[in-house]
């Protein structure tokens, strides 16, 4: 059926007399007519505006109202301020602290969406120029639903790169609209700000999908294969006798040119091509010869090691002081994105030879090259030429020099006081004066690598370098394996796990995503993943979390990627890829609703979200919450009804979406069969929860997978895990079991006596298992 979109020009003639001809009431609309194959009738919400899904958002917010934790009591956003909003005082524009916090959430989620939107746009333009607009969007075999978020949100089924042009225009338009709402004198309701933040999250998730599908198609990344190559990860895996290029950021297109150049010249093994953060993940999806240094927390530390001969930056999550850091070790920088130019001269139009010369001779500490096809040759030639020159910089200062630095320590504690996670840096540095570096080694793994300790140190002790030196021997043994990101979840996998997941026999999907600001190191993410794997949850991971999981070996000396298969199935660990690959995790939940349950997908947001909220046990774990992008990814998941557990550092996101299980009226759904309102218990209890510790997150993860639609067998299994893990870590039966047991058949068989006795004590009454929905229109027949 042809569709008319984008009515761009309208010509209207009321009456025109020309000679003998009279034209009256003529209206011509010039727009875009799209011929498309029939695939699914269009649903109710194609390309929703910022208010289209407001009523859905308000349903969620009614059950999970925001709890705010302001980081700052002031508003400094306009020239009336500073306005003191403490304790609900109003600012000059009339805003109070609640609405202002909600505005901050909107601002941050929009920043995240903008970063991912721009990332997708950059990839689109680069790949369009390189491969043409006719590039097929190829999500691989056994994949019919290639772009679940795009189909759901926009109603578009992308077949070629060109089809994403309209999607990107929609994304950019929505970002402008969302940002506009944060202006002074616009939105005033905290709930509407939150609704718009959900919208920003949804737009973010859409941008993720566009970005990853484009790069998967263009660069032939893995497309859902579970057995992708095992890639070297860890600083100990690199051969420091070779010239080394380090790529940092998220947009891999420039770094791929390095691999291509080396392959074209048959010299792949002559250099080490390495990466940090998500660019590294995506490089590993492109070539199993690329090496991953680690998550972003290793950035500053690895740069200080001096090992990198050339640093290539693209966009996002790059230490903004990187130029100065690189200058300290005489490593030239090649900036490749207009998002991060670093004040460097633009040499895009210069011949390669001139650029290389400028970098090797130190004429410029770095250059900006916006033509990615040039980056490969420049980076490789520069690395080769400069490596012998900068040999003496390939080491942190020796232990003696560093101890001399430590001797300047006055034990003022300011390093610790400026540490975002309150690490006892002061004690470690003070002790290093005596030559005892053990405490520095201990905090090496815990440190998030931001460098704030150094900026506060009065005697200018290079604390990060101290740590790097102290942990030198340990770093040499940082040799691990990570499975290259597999990308999309196949339709066949969805069909296999759909029924057991929805019925509850697979207890849930746990997705570890986000950054590495962990309260107690990356090992906690790996430990959590292992616990869920042993309990046969489907464990998926992306980005820095996926890298942190790799940097841990079990009792058999294997990383979890070596110990568990990479399928999307119970007891498997799937590294889906970089941050933009989070689209496939969220997309998997959407695909279950569409492929397994046959719910219409196209532009049918509310129904799909209602299905996920009530039926799919999936939880996002954001253990090392740091960036605005993490928040926007998570908020997109929230709008689809997927709960998120955040680590304690995420309290600085300033907002939780919490339910209260004692409030029965908040946990009512319609039984779609009868229209009757039914109490479902706290299932799920919260939408955004900040956990104080790893154990609390683990228990909360099992609980939030409980859904109203679980069959009795499924609920038995989920309760078994919830009760068992609660007893293991907290020592008791959870105090809300009676709210989650609907009939005696739900009670785990192995715990029957104990639980029945508990239920009796709580005066428990049985309840029916509904066909749950919170959308009135989904009721099939009304009483």
């Amino acid at each position, binding site marked *: 059926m042809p569709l008319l979109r984008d009515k761009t020009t309208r010509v209207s003639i009321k009456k025109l007399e020309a000679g003998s001809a009279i034209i009256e009431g003529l209206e011509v609309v010039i727009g875009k007519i799209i011929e498309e194959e029939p695939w699914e009738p269009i649903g109710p919400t194609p390309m929703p505006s910022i208010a289209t899904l407001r009523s859905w958002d308000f349903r969620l917010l009614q059950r999970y109202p925001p*709890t*705010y934790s302001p980081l*700052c*009591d002031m508003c400094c956003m306009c020239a009336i301020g500073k306005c003191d909003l*403490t*304790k609900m005082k109003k600012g000059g524009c009339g805003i109070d602290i609640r609405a202002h916090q909600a505005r901050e959430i909107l601002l941050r989620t929009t920043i995240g969406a903008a970063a991912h939107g721009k990332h997708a746009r950059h990839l689109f333009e680069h790949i369009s120029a390189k491969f043409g607009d006719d590039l097929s969007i190829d999500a691989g075999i056994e994949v019919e639903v290639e772009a679940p978020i795009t189909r759901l949100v926009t109603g578009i089924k992308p077949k070629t790169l060109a089809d994403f042009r309209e999607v990107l225009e929609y994304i950019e338009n929505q970002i402008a609209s969302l940002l506009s709402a944060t202006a002074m004198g616009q939105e005033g309701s905290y709930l509407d700000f939150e609704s718009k933040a959900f919208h920003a999250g949804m737009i973010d998730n859409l941008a993720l999908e566009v970005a990853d599908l484009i790069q998967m198609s263009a660069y032939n990344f893995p497309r859902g294969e579970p057995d992708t190559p095992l890639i070297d990860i860890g600083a100990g895996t690199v051969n420091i006798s070779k010239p080394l290029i380090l790529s940092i950021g998220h947009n891999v297109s420039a770094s791929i040119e390095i691999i291509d150049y080396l392959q074209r010249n048959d010299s792949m093994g002559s250099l080490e091509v390495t990466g940090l953060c998500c660019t590294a993940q995506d490089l590993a999806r492109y070539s199993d010869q690329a090496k991953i240094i680690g998550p972003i927390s290793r950035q500053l530390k690895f740069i200080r090691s001096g090992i990198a001969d050339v640093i290539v930056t693209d966009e996002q999550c790059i230490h903004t002081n990187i130029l100065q850091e690189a200058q300290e070790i005489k490593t030239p920088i090649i900036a490749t994105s207009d998002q991060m130019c670093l004040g460097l001269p633009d040499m895009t139009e210069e011949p390669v030879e001139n650029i290389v010369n400028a970098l090797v001779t130190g004429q410029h500490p770095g250059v900006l090259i916006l033509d990615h096809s040039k980056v490969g040759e420049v980076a490789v030639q520069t690395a080769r030429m400069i490596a012998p020159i900068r040999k003496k910089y390939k080491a942190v200062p020796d232990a003696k020099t560093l101890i001399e630095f430590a001797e300047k320590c006055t034990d003022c504690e300011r390093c610790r*006081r400026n540490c975002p996670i309150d690490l006892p840096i002061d004690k470690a540095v003070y002790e290093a004066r005596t030559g005892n570096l053990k405490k520095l080694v201990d905090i090496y793994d815990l440190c998030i690598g931001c460098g704030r300790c150094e900026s506060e140190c009065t005697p200018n002790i290079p604390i990060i370098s101290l740590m790097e030196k102290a942990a030198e021997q340990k770093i040499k043994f940082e040799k691990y394996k990570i499975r290259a990101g597999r990308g999309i979840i196949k339709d066949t996998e969805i069909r296999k796990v759909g029924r057991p997941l929805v019925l509850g026999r697979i207890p849930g999907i746990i997705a570890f995503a986000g950054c590495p600001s962990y309260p107690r190191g990356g090992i906690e993410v790996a430990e959590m993943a292992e616990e869920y794997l042993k309990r046969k949850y489907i464990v998926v991971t992306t980005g820095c979390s996926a890298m942190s999981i790799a940097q841990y070996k079990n009792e058999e000396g294997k990383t979890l990627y070596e110990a568990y298969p990479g399928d999307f199935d119970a007891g498997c660990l799937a590294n889906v890829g970089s941050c933009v690959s989070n689209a496939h995790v969220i997309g998997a939940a959407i695909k279950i609703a569409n492929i397994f349950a046959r719910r219409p997908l196209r532009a049918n947001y509310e129904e799909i979200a209602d299905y996920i909220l009530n039926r799919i046990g999936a939880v996002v774990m954001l253990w090392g919450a740091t960036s605005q992008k993490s928040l926007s990814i998570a908020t997109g998941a929230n709008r689809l009804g997927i709960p998120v557990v955040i680590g304690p550092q995420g309290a600085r996101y300033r907002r939780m979406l919490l339910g209260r299980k004692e409030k029965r009226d908040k946990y009512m759904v319609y039984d779609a069969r009868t229209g009757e309102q039914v109490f479902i218990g706290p299932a799920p209890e919260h939408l955004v929860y900040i*956990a*104080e510790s790893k154990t609390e997150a683990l228990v909360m993860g099992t609980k939030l997978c409980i859904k109203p639609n679980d069959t009795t067998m499924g609920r038995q299994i989920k309760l078994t895990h919830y009760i068992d893990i609660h007893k293991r870590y907290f020592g008791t039966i959870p105090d809300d079991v009676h709210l989650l047991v609907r009939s005696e058949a739900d009670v785990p068989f192995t715990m029957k006596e104990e639980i029945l006795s508990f239920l009796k004590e709580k005066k428990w009454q049985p309840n029916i298992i509904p066909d749950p929905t919170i959308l009135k229109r989904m009721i099939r027949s009304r009483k």
Partner: protein
Amino acid sequence: MITIAASPWQIGGTPGPTEAATLKPETAAKLIQIAKRPILVAGSLTLETKVSNGPLIDFIIEWGKLGIPVVATKPTLKEFLKRGFKPSASMGLSDLINRLTDPTWSLDGNGAHDLIIFLGIRYPILSQMLSTLKHFAQNLRTMSLNGFFQPNADWSFPNMKEEEWKEKMAFLLKTLKEK
């Protein structure tokens, strides 16, 4: 030794014009004694933090035995039970803070609490949770007894070295016992 009073432990942590009053142990004891419905919240650092006579958890148990209701955050519950002490309640910290913003809520359903005392909670998360209560639970007062100044509380111990904090905690407990 440098002791910086009334300056947030985390540099840059000044939230705005309203900050906690710095607390001395004798004042803390008085405030606790005059509170009608206080609770003591024990967080996940209670095991690894040491006071003069052992881990903080034992100190809290000793204090709890004087009659103040103790809420163990979830990760600490097991350790309390192991020591034969049953806290008045155990909740996730986020869950507890959320409920405390509701003036009709209390642990026992017998009326709102008026003083919430925090011990053994990691600084960054406690700072944010205290911020919630500062803005949205104006019916109650909050007190941080960790040795790190928390500006979002109503009352907080100043920044102290470990030994000084231990002494002050011992003095506080002694004063409460003498009442």
